């Protein structure tokens, strides 16, 4: 009886609350049943890009087409956009005038399925190369992006094309595209393992080292100015070196230290590095200032501690230790405290890389006789494969947008660098030709 009473009371109170809410809801809006819409197959916006008007004293149609293609390629690299062939255009193929020209007829573009229209003007003169571009959200007929770029006439116009494309990606998704970034990697294409740098689409690979020694593990400074790497060029032993294209002092990072130095990574501020150094026994993790000073030890075990990667806030490190008998991922505070094991599954987990948005740690795990790349969240709650293949996929490195990763794979026999979206789609090979290409390090956004 008591239970019944309590039940009736409960129902009464709930009814009162429910009726009140429904009444207030009806007052506020309506009691319409919503239509729940979930994503369909459409993952990419379709863009129509006009040939930009050439405002130069000496027009160069070839340069106009080349710039056009570079923008389109960079947009498609994002995985967010897909081009519409100019043959399908109902509107003008070439921009007439950004200011004072005829109005844009959005229906001309929506009829051919375009979500975006890109129009612009290019001027080449003694002062340099300049581009003005405007991007329309054709569906809402809204002027979404206006950009103006200028650079010396000697600079590569494709740099502007990629930056424009990345900003269009940002306008539609809120996250800047990464086509204007670079990827450092190791290649033995010359017969020696040297550091190379290429554009994020794999183009324009150029050597950053040529010392005919063994060079490995490149890591970018967050301002994209320098690469720290390990080289055997001095005394034929492992030392840390810095290659700089700006203000940093190139050469040995720790000139006074004659202990084996296996790897270093800049922290997100660029002021410190975490390094793997051995005092003759198993390597440990150290912290040092960017100028090589203030070296202090973070781990002190008989086990091997390697592969540090910074959390985006610079307060924690994920690294690999074999202190339990097998290589596993651990997270610790940057003062060396609060060490916590992250991976418990798999007998060989290594090469962690913390995503710039902090959500995931990519790492390689041994499955059978080869490695796959998995993602685990920093709490260790979710652990999923990024990509699996019969051959080894190794050395994951996040793009600065946290939406793409680079890794090396032997799926073609030799090792090549690939990029892939975080959801496992849009796999793309960046390197080809001779040699093994490994250890990719995705550089930061250009400044």
């Amino acid at each position, binding site marked *: 009886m008591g239970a019944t009473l309590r039940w009736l009371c409960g129902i009464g109170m709930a009814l009162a609350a429910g009726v009140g809410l*429904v009444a207030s*809801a009806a007052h506020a809006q309506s009691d*319409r*049943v919503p239509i729940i819409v979930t994503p369909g197959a459409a993952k990419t916006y379709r863009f129509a890009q006009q040939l930009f008007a050439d405002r130069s004293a000496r027009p160069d149609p070839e340069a106009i087409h080349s710039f056009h293609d570079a923008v389109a390629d960079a947009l498609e690299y994002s995985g967010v956009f897909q081009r519409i062939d100019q043959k399908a255009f109902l509107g003008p193929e070439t921009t007439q005038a950004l200011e004072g020209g005829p109005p844009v007829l959005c229906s001309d573009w929506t009829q051919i399925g375009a979500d975006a229209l890109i129009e612009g003007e290019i001027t080449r003169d003694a002062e340099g190369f300049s581009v003005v571009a405007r991007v329309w959200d054709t*569906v809402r007929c809204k002027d*979404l992006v206006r950009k103006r770029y200028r650079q010396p006439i000697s600079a590569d116009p494709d740099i502007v094309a990629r930056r424009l494309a990345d900003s269009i990606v940002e306008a539609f998704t809120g996250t800047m595209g990464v086509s204007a970034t670079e990827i450092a990697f190791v290649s033995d294409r010359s017969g020696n393992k040297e550091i190379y740098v290429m554009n994020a689409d794999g183009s324009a690979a150029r050597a950053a080292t040529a010392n005919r020694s063994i060079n490995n593990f490149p890591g970018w400074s967050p301002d994209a100015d320098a690469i720290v790497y390990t080289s055997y060029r001095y005394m034929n032993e492992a030392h840390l070196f810095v290659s700089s294209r700006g203000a940093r002092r190139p050469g040995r990072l720790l000139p006074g230290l004659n202990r084996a130095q296996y790897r270093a990574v800049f922290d997100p501020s660029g002021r410190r590095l975490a390094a793997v150094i051995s005092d003759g026994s198993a390597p440990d993790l150290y912290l040092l200032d960017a100028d090589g000073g203030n070296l202090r030890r973070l781990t002190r075990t008989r086990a091997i501690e390697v592969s540090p990667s910074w959390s985006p806030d610079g307060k924690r490190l994920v690294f690999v230790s074999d202190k339990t008998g097998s290589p596993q991922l651990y997270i610790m505070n940057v003062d060396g405290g609060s060490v916590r094991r992250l991976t418990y599954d798999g007998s060989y987990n290594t090469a962690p890389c913390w995503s710039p948005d902090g959500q995931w740690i990519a790492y390689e795990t041994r499955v059978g006789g080869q490695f796959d790349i998995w993602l685990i969240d920093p709490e260790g709650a979710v652990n999923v494969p990024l990509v699996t293949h019969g051959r080894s996929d190794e050395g994951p490195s996040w793009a600065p947008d946290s939406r793409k990763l680079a890794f090396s794979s032997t799926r073609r026999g030799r090792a090549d660098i690939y990029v892939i979206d975080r959801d496992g789609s849009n796999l793309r090979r960046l390197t080809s030709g001779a040699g093994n290409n490994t250890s990719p390090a995705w550089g930061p956004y250009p400044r």
Partner: protein
Amino acid sequence: MAGVAMLDDPAATLESRRRREFRRMVVVSAVLHLSALGVAVSRPAPRAIAAPAAISVELVSDPTKPSRPAAAVRPPAPAPKPKPAKKVLPARPTQPKPKAQPKPAPERKEVVIEPKPKQEKSLEDLLADFREEQGESAPPAASPTATAAVPTPGAPGGTARVSPEVADWMRRAKIHVKRAWVVPPGFRNELLTTHVVVKLDGQGNVVGTPEIARRSGNPWYDEGVVRGIQKASPLPPPPEPGDWDFVFIPEDAY
């Protein structure tokens, strides 16, 4: 006496309790769903669509210092991802994986937490999926008084009565909008929900700009939703012109 007899019969007593319990749960469930529906519908409805601040930026790049957007134009941090109460680690293969093994999407945490593999779908679900893919509508309900259950954002599994004709139109409208809505990979399977009120005329044309009744927290996602609705215009002619509610959830498996 019958009551006494029932009380004397353990099985009958149990059955009676079970029925009472069931009735009670049905009523409680109905009340809770009504309440949740009330909460969902009574949320304040901001009028204007705020365009992302980044959108009309004019920027002159310095060749020595390439352009970058200001930090202020970054979108607000997405809602934190759900964390399961305990660690759930998918079983690792002990043998090299076959090449044809499907790759689970990393973001789809729900799949890891509460696996709902598609293979477990009933024949009806599969048939519905097939019809949806073919752009067909659902078969008409068996009885004119039948109800169509449509989940509401605030009350998963909640039901509300709509006529078979309306349910059929809603289904066709959903397929139509779904096709027009572009969802880039970065938005898929994120915790984003946008509620839009769309005014339709008798021919299904979207009248004016759809009004966002509930934002997702990511203005670019919200803009994409509005873009999708407008691109879908005209929708199939609605049962009656006026305001219709659409809720966009970027979760494939919802």
